[in-house]
């Protein structure tokens, strides 16, 4: 066999292998989505969204209280992580001298890679031990997870803002902070929102930190963040541990809802990003 022929076959084989690998990745997602939908779709109904969890041993009930709880937790976490994350990114791209920017960057990347169970234990020791489980402890833990994601995403869009725009503003005798607020942030707000939506999607499904901070069972709608808030991930976890098959089905249904939210949020984020890219294109 000639060398050339061997190379051609090798090339072809690797191409097929790579294609198969990509298809496997897509197939895994498809299998997850389909199996969750098959097992959970039966339990999804109007009542499922509007009724709170049933008491143990009683039939029916929904996930309304967990939906409200998760919404509150994520909202509060976003309120903490968004300003801190955006300001961190602004510091790194607009103000920090290089010798500080590099180590801070590394630390933020480490924070992004921290196992969520570690963040959970940390927040548990910080805010729960000696007090009680609470919504704000859970939100704080989620905020710690969201912070590096938002900071990273913001940094990337800030770097996309052309240097010539910064120069234009600074050459007018405008201070750096006013330049950031008046020129740089408005240009990159789309990208920042995209990063935030993705961080929200990620935080909405985080379970480990909430097990430590906000997992006490409640069967009514709670809005008091000083108490533990029922939430979707913990609901899925506890229901799946129960012997009752009806609860198993509800766990699958809740998982379906969560997954649908994440998928929609990702699509929404993609659309947002495409829109803000167009705005910057000349």
């Amino acid at each position, binding site marked *: 066999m000639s060398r050339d022929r061997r190379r051609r076959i090798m090339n072809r084989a690797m191409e097929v292998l790579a294609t198969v690998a990509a298809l496997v990745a897509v197939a895994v997602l498809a299998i997850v989505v389909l199996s969750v939908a098959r097992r959970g779709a039966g339990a999804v109904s109007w009542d499922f969204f509007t009724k709170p969890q049933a008491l143990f041993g009683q039939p029916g009930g929904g996930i309304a209280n967990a939906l409200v709880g998760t919404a509150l937790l994520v909202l509060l976490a976003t309120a903490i992580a968004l300003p801190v994350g955006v300001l961190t990114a602004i510091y790194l791209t607009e103000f920090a001298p290089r010798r500080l920017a590099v180590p801070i960057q590394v630390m933020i990347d480490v924070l992004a890679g921290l196992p969520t169970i570690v963040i959970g234990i940390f927040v548990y020791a910080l805010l729960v031990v000696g007090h009680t489980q609470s919504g704000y402890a859970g939100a704080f833990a989620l905020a710690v997870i969201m912070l590096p994601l938002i900071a990273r995403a913001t940094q990337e869009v800030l770097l996309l803002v052309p240097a010539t*725009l910064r120069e234009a503003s600074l050459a007018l005798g405008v201070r750096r902070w006013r330049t950031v607020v008046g020129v740089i942030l408005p240009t990159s707000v789309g990208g920042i929102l995209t990063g935030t939506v993705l961080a929200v999607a990620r935080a909405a499904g985080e379970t480990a930190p909430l097990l430590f901070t906000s997992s006490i069972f409640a069967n009514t709608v709670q809005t008091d963040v000083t108490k533990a808030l029922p939430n979707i991930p913990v609901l899925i976890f506890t229901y799946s541990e129960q012997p009752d098959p009806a609860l198993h089905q509800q766990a699958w249904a809740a998982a379906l809802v969560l997954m649908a939210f994440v998928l929609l949020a990702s699509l929404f984020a993609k659309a947002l990003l495409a829109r803000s890219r167009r705005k910057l294109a000349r």
Partner: protein
Amino acid sequence: MTESFTIAPVIDVAQERHEARADEREVVFDIHDLTVSYGPLTAISGVDLQIYRNVITAIIGPSGCGKSTFIRCLNRMNDLVPGTRIEGQILYQGSDLYASGVDPVDVRRRIGMVFQRANPFPKSIYDNVAWGPRVLGMRKDLDDRVEKALRSAALWDEVKDRLKKNALSLSGGQQQRLCIARAIAVEPEVLLLDEPASALDPIATSAIEDLMHRLKREYTLVIVTHNMQQAARVADLTAFFSLEVDEERRSGVLVEYDATSKIFTNPSDKRTEDYVTGRFG
């Protein structure tokens, strides 16, 4: 004052326009022995130059001779480049631009700049011009101020019906004139133009050049250009920079500074002659 050698421009009163009469030749920038380096690289060295009020001064020279570096020292834009080192002295209206108490933001507020590539903000035409005055606290009669700046930049008639439109919808030449309007809306004393027409077609270029002639009545203008014809057309005084290579060190130096007509017809230095006659560069 220092004893460093200054090339004094000779302005032929009869030949130059009335703004440049000898008795009105007030010095705006007085530059002594200016050396600028980026890290280990020297961009320009030993520049001595004086820039006069209500005169258009052109900086010409081959690529890499430090024209842009020079002009960016005049409003401290080089401060934004990490690793820049500036030696020598730049006096602006008698006071040292680089003295320790001087706030670079305040310097830029008084000495405006227009860049090589038109860089309008992704905002409306109106907001591009209004933003600077608004941020700098000149909110009174903002509409009038915007109109005046756009008129001064010879853009008003073209955009008055679409002030709310995005500035990026304008043509390249219009965008550059918008940038000039934006710069003069905050009423600077000096306008620095760094190759303002190099990305424009000949018609847009001539619009910018006409504009410069009109702006000269109110402002002191310094223009960097690699286009010699442009310098010959617009400038009263021309400074020729060149690249000096000496023992592996390359840096830009000021070769000759004189009335534009003299630089282009009867230069004193052989290097200037070679450049303006097209023998190099």
